[in-house]
């Protein structure tokens, strides 16, 4: 274990972010380096609990106390080994995960939690820097082939696991680049895309085959793959955005976040974009108070919007953990994302009633009202505000029903996600599903966890077969 009294001796400290004035002018990651000595100090704060709540707080069940200790003891190479044992892509989670581990950290009962996420990121970044991350091709190969459809975090994790287990894995991606939501949904300032490329390179070297621009279910029927592959894993994500069914929704200038954000990522990647949606010089309203909304906020700022507002229908949460979500539950509380530091107005308990606009069909005004806890509109609180661009970031309702799912013929669950049994197998034998396509929109850490678990099931199933 780390230093027994570390949590008494040291305060929580996180790596500083780059100054707002600087970062708002570029698309690079907002993080600054965290010196190894500081990481060690933070690692020393871990108490190596007898019941480490972080371990179950983390959907991947990362062995957090183990690598905290190793970092504290300066055993970085052992630390990445322990981290990789449960997590294929710590560089993703170390940047993007909302860190439920930290809200369940035992130290969090009465002190600021251990800086688990920062430590995780430091370990993996250090490992890449040291050149410790090398391809790990399997020692022997089975004769089995697996198709993974979708190259988001769930698909990539599953592919790497299955490949390392010795199976031949092919990943199908409908887009031209790999990574799914990671590539197109996450702004570069939160994660630069070189991290994905580096992993994909490793996986290629390990023997995973990638086929991009293949939209299974649309260009190729799923059945066509069944002869070639003994198992198929669907990891197509939950791409169906939740819409706002109010009058005026059809007006120009109202877009889903997932129309807006990918464009910017492509732009950063040097692609030429048609039908550009840009916030530059515009009055922007983001509807939806979650992470995607925050990503829109940061992107709009970088595109130099004239103003940005973000509305949330729920009431403003308390500044600290709400009483009805005591430790170690995921706390209802106000969350301050990096984008919020960069400006913009946030408002809560706001519902949009309709849009209006000019004759060209452009949206120029948003009409809203304040609501109570049960979303009842409060009379007399109606308001109108001028807008040029409205971004809808209200979450996703599930996987797209056409295309892949139709083609696969798999049964869906009550919520419209793909139904599977405990082994992640769908109603079609040999066809499995994992990630958002199965559990609905969720965290990247869940996607990786699902991908790993599905891979284990597929491996077992293939061995038996």
């Amino acid at each position, binding site marked *: 274990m780390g230093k*027994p*009294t570390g*949590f*008494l001796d040291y305060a929580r400290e996180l790596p500083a972010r780059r100054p707002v004035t600087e970062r708002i002018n570029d698309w690079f990651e907002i993080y600054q380096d965290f010196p190894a000595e500081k990481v060690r100090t933070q690692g020393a704060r871990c*108490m*190596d*609990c*007898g*019941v*480490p*709540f972080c*371990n*179950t*707080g983390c959907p991947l*069940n990362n*062995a957090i*106390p*183990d690598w905290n200790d190793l970092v504290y003891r300066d*055993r970085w*190479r*052992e630390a990445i*080994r*322990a981290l990789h*044992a*449960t997590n294929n892509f710590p560089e993703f989670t170390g940047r993007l995960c909302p860190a439920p581990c930290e809200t*369940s950290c*035992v*130290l969090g*009962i*009465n*002190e600021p939690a251990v800086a688990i996420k920062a430590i995780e990121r430091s370990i993996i970044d250090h490992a890449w820097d040291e050149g410790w991350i090398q391809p*790990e091709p*399997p*020692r*022997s190969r*089975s004769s089995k082939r697996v198709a993974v459809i979708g190259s988001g975090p769930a698909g990539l994790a599953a592919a*790497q*696991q299955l490949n*390392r*287990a*010795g199976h031949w894995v092919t990943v199908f991606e409908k887009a031209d680049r790999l990574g799914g939501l990671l590539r197109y949904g996450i702004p570069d300032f939160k994660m630069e895309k070189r991290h994905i490329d580096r992993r994909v390179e490793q996986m290629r070297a390990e023997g995973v085959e990638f086929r991009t621009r293949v939209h299974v279910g649309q260009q190729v029927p799923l059945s066509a793959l069944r002869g070639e592959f003994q198992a198929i894993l669907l990891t197509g994500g939950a791409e169906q955005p939740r819409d706002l069914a109010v009058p005026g929704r059809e007006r120009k200038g109202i877009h889903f976040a997932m129309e807006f954000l990918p464009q910017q990522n492509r732009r950063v990647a040097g692609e030429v974009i048609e039908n550009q949606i840009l916030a530059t010089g515009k009055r922007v309203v983001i509807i939806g108070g979650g992470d995607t909304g925050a990503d829109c906020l940061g992107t709009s700022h970088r595109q130099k919007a004239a103003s940005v507002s973000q509305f949330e229908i729920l009431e403003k949460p308390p500044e600290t953990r709400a009483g009805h979500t*005591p*430790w*170690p*539950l995921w706390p209802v509380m106000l969350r301050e994302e990096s984008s919020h530091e960069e400006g913009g107005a946030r408002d809560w308990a706001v519902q949009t009633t309709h849009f209006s606009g000019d004759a060209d069909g452009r949206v120029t005004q948003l009409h809203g009202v304040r609501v109570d806890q049960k979303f009842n509109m409060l009379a007399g609180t109606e308001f109108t505000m001028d807008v040029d661009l409205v971004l809808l970031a209200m979450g996703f309702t599930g996987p797209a029903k056409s295309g892949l799912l139709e083609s696969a013929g798999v049964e869906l669950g009550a919520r419209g996600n793909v139904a599977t049994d405990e082994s992640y197998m769908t109603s079609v034998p040999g066809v499995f599903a994992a990630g958002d396509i199965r559990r609905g929109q969720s965290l990247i850490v869940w996607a990786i966890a699902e991908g*790993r678990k599905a*891979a*284990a099931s597929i*491996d077992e199933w293939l061995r038996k077969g």
Partner: protein
Amino acid sequence: MDGFPVAPSGPVGLYHPSTEHDACGLGLVANINGSKSHEIIKKGLEILVNLAHRGACGCDPETGDGAGILIQIPHKFFAKQCALPGAGGMGSGRPGEASSGFTLPEPGQYGVGMVFLPVEMQQRLLVEGILERITREEGLTVLGWRDTPINSDAIGRQARASQPYIEQIFIRGASGMTQDALERKLFVVRKRAENEMAASNIRDKSFFYIPSLSTRTIIYKGLLLAPQIPEFYGELKDPDTESALCLVHQRFSTNTFPTWQLAHPYRNICHNGEINTVRGNAAWMHARQSVLESDLFGADLKKLYPVISPGNSDTASLDNAVELLTLAGRELPHVMAMLIPEAWDADDAMPKDKKAFYEYHASLMEPWDGPAAVAFTDGRLIGATLDRNGLRPARYVITTGGQLILASETGVLPIKPEEITFKGRLQPGRMLLCDTEAGRIIPDEELKSKLAARQPYAEWLAEQQIHLDALPDPPRVYASDQSTITMRQRAFGYTEEDLKMILGPMAAAGEEPIGSMGTDTPLACLSDKPQPLFHYFKQLFAQVTNPAIDPIREELVMSLTSYIGTERNILAETAQHCHTLKLTHPILTNLDLEKLRRVSWGDFLATTLPMLFPVAGGAQGLEFALDNLCRQASLAIQSGYRLLILSDRGVDKNYAPIPSLLALAAVHNHLVREETRTQVALIIESGEPREVMHYALLIGYGASAINPYLAIETLEQFEQRGLLPPGATFETALKNYKKAVNKGLLKVFSKMGISTLQSYRGAQIFEAIGLNKGIVEKYFTGTPSRIEGVGLDVLAREAAMKHAFAFEPENGYSTELDTGGNYHFRANGELHLFNPTTVSKLQHAVRAEDGFATFQEYTKAIDEQNQQFSTLRGLMEFRMNAQPIPLSDVEPATEIVKRFATGAMSFGSISKEAHETLAIAMNRIGGRSNTGEGGEDEARYPREANGDWKRSAIKQVASGRFGVTAHYLVNAEELQIKVAQGAKPGEGGQLPGHKVDDVIARVRHSTPGVPLISPPPHHDIYSIEDLAQLIYDLKNVNPSARISVKLVAEVGVGTVAAGVAKAHADVVLISGHDGGTGASPLTSIKHAGIPWELGLAETQQVLVMNDLRSRIRVQTDGKLQTGRDVAIAALLGAEEFGFSTAPLVALGCIMMRKCHLNTCPVGIATQDPELRKKFTGQPEHVIQFFFFIAEEVRMLMAQLGFRRMEDMVGRVDRLMMRKAVEHWKARGLDFSAILFDPPVPGRVSRRCTIPQDHGLSEALDYKLISHAKGAIERGENIDIRLPIRNVHRTVGAMLSGEIARKHGSEGLAPDTIRFHFTGSAGQSFGAFLARGVTLTLDGDANDYVGKGLSGGRLIVYPPRVSTFAPEENILIGNVALYGATSGDAYFNGVAGERFAVRNSGATTVVEGVGDHGCEYMTKGLVVVLGRTGRNFAAGMTGGLAFVLDETGEFAKTTCNRQSVDLTPMSDATDEAAVRALIERHVELTQSPRGSWILENWGTMREKFLKVFPHELQRVMGIKKPAAVPIPAVTTRGREEVVRG
């Protein structure tokens, strides 16, 4: 008849006869010159009567546990009696036929047998016929039978019910036969008769028993109380019955089913104590039979087998061994020295040839180890010897009239002081021998040097013994293979945790890793993960009937040395016998092993046998491989190999390792059965063993040495992976690892009270949990396993699972090794009852306004987890009532919560805030909180203004006796004697100095910053009669408190509990193995003790079967978490329920398992003021928890149809095992033994219904109190003279209790109350004596003088008329001033062993002490004016001692300087204090020695050495201690003298 009148002959329910223990009082009297007299017998019987309080009674107060007397054959009496008409000469004795009597030949030409026979005549005649036939066949002549006149009216109801018909048989030898030859023949006759009877189908054969059959001695014994013996056996009162010597014994069996046969003496010995290693000793004796040869016995030898009769008590087994060895030619003292050797190994002061004598005999056989005072005789020699650690008392006197009197206590015979020429005590490992033929006493030194000179033992050893170092280096040694290490670690089931939490700390620190908060993972037989076979076993440990040993502070008695090689005929004595390999410890490196593999020296030759099996073959493959291994072992022996190396090197794709323990046990038992076991040594070369428990098991099942090659390679892996601490290398890691294993092994042995590896080897001191009969009978013969369980198929499957994991392609979706999760929760690891879900739900429930629903979610999660095969109770199911009763009919929760207690957690282990919150909560609801062993702040005794009460209702009395004063004891409703605790039974503890702040130091009566050690045993409980004594002591101090005894579940706990009931405890607490703790070695947390379900059920069954249940309440604890748990415990027999972990969790504990580090982040298990601020627990949380539990219990009661809890106690008929258990392991379990309902009549109570009779009415203190009334109430001075006898025990304690109640810890002004006694005081003289009381004793005293002294004053000196020099004679017994907290004491004479042990404040002067003086002392001042025994000041961390070292012996050998420095008494303050104290001593005792020292102060002062603890010096660096206080003595004229 109530209960079972006769011991069940086999196991019943969870009871097994092999768990019986006994202990007792013994004595001997002899005319040293051998002259016979009737007076000797009278005196022997009188001794017995005066030792009666050391015996016990069962449920029938008139029936004792057994007593007896051995005397020389009273020829004069028999010659007269046999000649009388009516004595049954041959050819008479038939019904109705008058006999004419018969004539006895000269003494020595005939033997007399005392014979127990069936009562029914027809059966009896059959037995007599067989005995006569065998006698004839052996060439002897039966002279006749004599009905032994008996008076059945003199004995108890139960005794009568099982009384045999008792006759004497007279047998003459063939003409020309020597007496020795006849003696041997009689032995043959007896053995043959025993064997033939055992094999016969005579219905009442269980009555048959021959107490004695000898030409020299005769034994009268039975299920009697001491005073009943001469009444029952009237001829003992006949003046013609004469003897020159006698041995007497009064038995106290924890043993619940005492019998006529198990009374002592046996043929050669009687014994007070316990042979812990008896199972191994008996097995080895059995194994040796094949090589026994004797010129004296010739062909008769075979008729004597089995040497050790099966199913016997430990003493009977020892007697069997003694008998064979003496009759085969060794002198009795030689035999005793061989069987119960001194601790010679580490004794550098021992003469070389004596050491050689012991070492030679150590090569012959292992010691019979355990606490033992053994008195022995062969009819000519009589004597006694004590075990190596001196754990039993034995005092003796020699009179001017030439008599030797020895007994467990002094003062058992009234002897005029002026007639005593010497008073002594048996010292550890020493022998006292009286040769009645030579007419003199042979002192130990003369005797031993005579023995040592018998043969050139030292030369023989030099010539024959082999040492590893001397063997040539082998050409090749296995190197480590890091490329396959992960694969092999997987194949042997290594987990990440094994590396991180077991091997890592061992390699880094050389210590066993420590943990806390107990265990909450499934038993191996329920775990879904493949387990090492090792984990199906649980260590047994000593409790009550024998003490655990402190392997650190009493290291001198411990030894890891063993001698391996072929065992030879122990009836002969040649140089060849010590042709053995000497190993100083059992762990072999690869180099060591290779040397052995290639050894060729004398007949040492080694061969390697593979411990692998084809993994595809499953159970059959495994069984075949085992059979094959056994066959190969036999072949190897035939081919002349003497070292068999069982090796699992070579694991590959097809072959998996056989669990090393299974392979070893299979070969061991196979060879035992084949009678070739003693020809070879078994050495294990295995990748499997890695933690202490593994090594303990391998040794316990017969391995001579172990090469843990994979553990060693793992250490190398640590080095390569950079996981060792900075500066450490593989070499240091290996050294540390070996050290940790060896220390751990000593701890495991010592827990059981065993001192040497040689005695431990093969002793099988384990219980299996969840192995089926098939496996146990074939491979683990004799190991208790009571709930059936898995078979070879599961073991094969577990091996296959690990093997599959090892040889699966790297799949990358798991860690390299299994995560483990056994110690710390891990998401993918082992199940834990307390996990993130249950901890948080419980906390949320007790904090919410209306939390019962959440609470039920919590209990549902726990109960479901239990049912998912986590605990035994999880597999039980209720038999509900068809018609539930309304919930409102069930007694209210407010009644139920009164049955709840919180566990013993000391203030010191947990914070003041947590401790007081628990106390307030429990006092509010009428339950009981427990002080734990750390004392209690007096400020908590009065109630708070708001009605809250911070005092704990239960005051614990543990081995450290911290803060146990009279005042503490009277402020209790219950006094709990902690014999063991679930997390580390048989072990002591240590509170590190950094936790001892000012408050804790004050409460514990110690010095801030000085670490405090709790010894493994209570030094005043080495046996069951000692426990009875402590109970009596406590009851005296506080007669209104109930006394409870805390035990830990293990096989045999039921018999111990029965003993506890007979020792008059009011409550017995059966703790499960899983209980929490502040700090304990992980080995102990995981591998010692068993679940409470088993222990509780056994306790209930045994108590009910003996009709003892009605007088004792039963409590249980051990991870009780839900209402279901409580209901099951009640149905299994518990009336009360203890909780510790769950209420702590309610208070905010999140199972950090860091209690031992003082870093508890929620302020519970810490003394850090900053962390304590983080404590947020409230009494309401605890109260809420208990009411929720009670509510759940009520709901279950309604469904079960019980209105009151007392109705459900012991209703095991309402439980059943869950049907259709399909789990691959659990389906083999069978709970019928747990759910056994003893078939007793309805009047036998299943719960406590009547109070214990503590016998307080006999206490002398009532008299003292009435005399002292004015003094207590008005502070008047009194001064009174009274006589005293050894039956007056615990004098002064009740008086002190009265004073403490009235005046608190302040007591009265010094010397307010003075009592002056004359005579021999009983045990615990002046125990807990309060300030203001002075007891003066003109005479001598027994054990425990001034125990717990609480400010009073004790003065003891020999009678003024004595002629001996006081400083050379024993004055007071063992363990004086144990746990004394204040006061002063002056002893004009020598004290026994363990003087001032754990002294924490008393000031005393004594003129000599035995071994282990001032052990664990933390405060106070001790001045010794003479010699000390060995190991003085071991573990002493505080206080000062000054020892007059005239010879330099103290500085050189007897002081244990590990924790103290010796400096001259240079400081003037010191000198003044010591001198003043000696002056006071002389003034109070008129000590001649003291006067002489003062007269010669100029030279003497330089010979005083100051014993200065390191820890005290360290603390003094910070703080100057107060000057040594010299107690004031009030001098005043006698105001009143009453002769009482």
